[in-house]
């Protein structure tokens, strides 16, 4: 992913370690982030959506399962802000519920995926030999397996159980490319003096990874996690669209969009309003991710991407 920027990330870390400038790194990063108007706008939108997702349901008198028998297929009104569906369920309440799910899935999944990538990539890169072989084969294997198919086949497993299993499954197919980069970064870090001296002092490998290797690629990992958020949100949509993800009676943005696709022409609000919320969410998250990357790693040229 960010392979071209590998040495740059390292070089930047080095500058920071031998820091003489008066401003702290944290403040510098924040300032760089704030300088980008699009990133700040994205952050504001994400915060607003968060607020809407968790407070919004209390602002409307309808819950996401409640049925307004007298008003099926109502277009957006003052009572039903996003209209209602076949049964008379309030689409605004459903969308906010779905938004909660998407936000949580994106955040939890991204942390999980980047965490697994960091740990496995570092183990492969640091220990080499069999550990390296095993991780590389695992990475290649998971890249060949179509993740959509595997999660879909496994969907009966979490049917009726907590949706957290679904998040874990999504994250399980999201870490491979990152782990490759982490492996490469670790291999070059392992040859550096500070790691070698720690090793000669007898510090065990897992401690070196935790204390020296991973902190040294923190900016890469943070960047990766922010990018993962939007890809996980989109992966959830893809699976729930076909009914392989979040199951009724619970809803997610993906299951809503899937359910209402066939109504898109006749009752446009059913499909387009949840879709619009989703697109705004993903766009905002992408803008934040781009800003974070520029702030943490100003030399990297890559921007955008999934």
């Amino acid at each position: 992913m960010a392979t071209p920027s590998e040495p740059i990330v390292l070089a930047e870390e080095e500058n920071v370690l031998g820091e003489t400038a008066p401003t702290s790194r944290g403040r510098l990063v924040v300032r760089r982030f704030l300088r980008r108007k699009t990133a700040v706008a994205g952050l504001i939108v994400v915060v607003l959506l968060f607020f809407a997702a968790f407070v919004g349901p209390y602002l409307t008198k309808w819950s996401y399962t409640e049925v307004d028998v007298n008003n099926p297929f109502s277009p957006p009104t003052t009572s039903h802000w996003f209209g209602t569906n076949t049964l008379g369920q309030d689409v605004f309440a459903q969308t906010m519920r779905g938004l909660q799910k998407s936000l949580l899935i994106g955040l939890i999944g991204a942390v999980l995926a980047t965490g697994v990538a960091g740990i496995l990539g570092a183990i492969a890169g640091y220990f080499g030999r069999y550990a390296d072989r095993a991780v590389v084969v695992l990475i290649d294997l998971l890249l060949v397996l179509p993740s959509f198919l595997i999660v879909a086949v496994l969907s009966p497993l979490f049917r009726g159980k907590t949706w957290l299993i679904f998040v874990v499954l999504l994250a399980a197919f999201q870490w491979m490319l990152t782990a490759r980069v982490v492996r490469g970064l670790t291999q070059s870090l392992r040859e550096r003096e500070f790691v070698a001296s720690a090793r000669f002092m007898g510090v065990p490998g897992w401690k070196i990874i935790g204390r020296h290797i991973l902190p040294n690629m923190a900016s890469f990992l943070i960047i990766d996690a922010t990018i993962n958020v939007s890809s996980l949100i989109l992966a959830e949509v893809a699976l729930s669209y076909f009914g392989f993800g979040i199951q009724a009676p619970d809803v997610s943005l993906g299951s809503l969009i899937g359910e209402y696709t066939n109504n898109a022409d006749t009752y446009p609000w059913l499909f387009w309003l949840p879709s619009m919320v989703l697109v705004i969410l993903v766009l905002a998250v992408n803008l934040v991710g781009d800003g974070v990357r520029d702030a943490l790693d100003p030399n990297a040229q890559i921007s955008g991407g999934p």
Partner: protein
Amino acid sequence: MVRFLLRRVVYLILLAAIATTLAYFLAATQLNPKLRFEGRNPPPSPASVTATLNDLNMNPDVPVIKRYVTWVNGVLHGDLGKTILGQSVNQQISTRMWVSLRLVLVGSIIGAIIGCAIGAYGAVKQYRLSDHVATVISFVVLSIPIVVLCKLVQVVGISLNNATGTPLFFTVGEYTPGDSSWTSFPDLWDRARHMFLPTLVLVIASAAFYSRYQRSAMLDVLGQDFLRTAQAKGLTRSRALIKHGLRTALIPLTTFFAYNIALLFIGSFFVEIIFSWHGMGEYLVNAITTQDINSTAATTLFVAILVLLAGILSDVAYAALDPRVRVS
């Protein structure tokens, strides 16, 4: 070089085999073909259900290993088994794969070319208006899930039809029902009108994707000394950019392309389903929802082989583009 490629091929074949095996075991243990026979009226006799399941090699009472061995034996002899409805999986795949491949290959190749062109142009004109416009558009497109993009394109297509008063584009199916031949010019024209909108979706999605990566790869290259050297030895700027810049910038993208084929295939599933094409996407989703073990495993095998071919192709392309690999 040949030895390197040969080793890659063996490795990739092994991976594909392991992936398919894994998918078979997952499908065989998680899917329940018996569900198909439950709730029927009148209920079929248990003996006939068992006989049917045995015939399909999907009887959950037979050990998974035994079913797997039977299936693999068939696959090695070129028989992928039967679908849950008793049709031949071979036949299903051989008709459906072309539907998907037509869509994916045309869409992704045109998309990659347009995307690379836009990305490279954006990098050369960095921070100019054209670069900004391309960046904003690709950013927005990348934030739209493919389902929503499909619907958007459909709506635009339909409103174009209404505006011109003639049905120029079709949004349903691959051809007008009853007219599936390829032979005459009107048939081809009919197919083209059906194909335009779904292909457009894939072109837009993949062009946005590739333009981002091509732009960054090109920016990396633009700062390099060899470009200045090329100009110093007398090449014009545009020639230097195309001959030395673009070519170098394409190298990292070839690996990317390989892994994205699988991704695009999944993306094309949505396109197929929304535009009602009877391709692999519809097949896979139906296979899982109808508890069809053989079809699910066969689809995995198909995708794995596709990734394998793409991997080998990208290795070859890598070697062709990068002289360092070619020589060693």
